[in-house]
């Protein structure tokens, strides 16, 4: 009898071992599943990159079956610690740089003074497109920054209840103003791409610092100089990245899984911070930083002397076409 019992025990042990080795997941466990080991941290740490604990669900939403995904902790840490640093350095750094530039260089003046003669720089449809994109961008930027910094910077000022209501409306504005922003971006690309192809002239402009570092030096430029072309491509490339990543956030079932969704939120947030920093520089040079520059997008017409100093070749082209006044204020007649 004792002999047959020991045979049964040996058989059970062999079958048990067979199950352990036949199951790959069991073979990968690096901790012993004792009562002490069954703690959340140890269980999560046992999961490899990309692994997740899933459950069985009865609704047709496959993403709802994810119970625990350890990569989510890295994503949360990024949102809470690294992203505010990236955003703070980029945005505050740009503000500090612009303040230093203004203190050292001062406002860039029109060297020859205003002539009183105007030249059309941007037609009404171009200005409409610019302001459509810009106004949406400002709301998108503020409501987006509210997600990253609002709880720390805004909530203490207005209280939790007012902050929650404001954030709810800001989220709605962010979601739906994204669409006219994308439309403006597409129109901008179509109407300005032909004037923003980089060329040899841009290299010369860059080598001379665009003439903004010293008074009286103005490298020749066509309709858009290298700096403006840089802003154009930052807007287009940054805008496309924001649009694609934002589309996945607007429709979170498109990426297909939580890991892809987290990837796109990181892209969206990092590009947004850099995009906002770059636009601060654009806003500065188009308003406070350069005398006469705002008129281009304000009324659409700029002073002829301003245009000659910053876009000499473009003025010459416009005058040759008879679309710009000559020095004495009369419109030149194009040669037949």
């Amino acid at each position, binding site marked *: 009898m004792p002999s047959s019992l020991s045979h049964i025990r040996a058989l059970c042990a062999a079958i048990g071992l067979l199950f352990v080795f036949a199951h790959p997941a069991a073979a990968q466990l690096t901790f012993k599943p004792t009562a002490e080991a069954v703690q959340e941290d140890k269980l999560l740490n046992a999961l490899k990159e990309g692994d997740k604990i899933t459950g069985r669900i009865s*609704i047709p*939403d496959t993403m709802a079956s994810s119970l625990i995904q350890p990569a989510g902790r890295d994503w949360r840490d990024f949102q809470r610690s690294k992203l505010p640093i990236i955003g703070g350095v980029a945005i505050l750094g740009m503000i500090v740089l612009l303040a230093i530039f203004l203190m050292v260089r001062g406002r860039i003046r029109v060297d020859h003074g205003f002539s009183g003669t105007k030249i059309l720089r941007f037609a009404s449809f171009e200005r409409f497109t610019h302001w459509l994109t810009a106004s949406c961008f400002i709301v998108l930027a503020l409501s987006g920054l509210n997600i990253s910094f609002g709880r720390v910077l805004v909530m203490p000022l207005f209280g939790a209840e007012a902050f929650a209501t404001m954030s709810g409306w800001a989220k709605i504005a962010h979601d739906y103003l994204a669409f006219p922003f994308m439309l403006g971006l597409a129109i901008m690309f179509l109407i300005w791409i032909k004037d923003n192809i980089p060329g040899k002239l841009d290299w010369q402009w860059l080598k001379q610092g665009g003439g903004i570092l010293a008074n009286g030096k103005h490298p020749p430029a066509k309709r858009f100089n290298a700096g403006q072309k840089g802003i154009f491509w930052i807007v287009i490339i940054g805008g496309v990245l924001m649009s694609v990543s934002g589309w996945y956030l607007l429709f979170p079932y498109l990426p297909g899984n939580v890991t892809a969704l987290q990837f796109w939120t990181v892209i969206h947030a990092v590009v947004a911070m850099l995009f906002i920093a770059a636009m601060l520089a654009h806003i500065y040079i188009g308003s406070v930083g350069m005398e006469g520059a705002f008129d281009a997008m304000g*009324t659409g017409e700029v002073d002829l002397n301003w245009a000659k100093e910053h876009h000499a070749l473009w003025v010459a082209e416009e005058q040759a076409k008879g679309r710009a006044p000559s020095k004495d204020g009369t419109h030149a007649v194009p040669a037949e």
Partner: protein
Amino acid sequence: MKSFLAALAFAAIAAFGVSSVLDTIQQSSSVAYTTSGARVGDPGKNLIGPN
């Protein structure tokens, strides 16, 4: 100034239009994910307001 104001008006109208279109063509999760074997509760307006 006219271009600026027109752009603001267009942005607001476009945003409202998109929200209306999406509201029409999209189903709420409580409808989309309800099957004959599982019912998903209406989440209500839990982002804004007292609910």
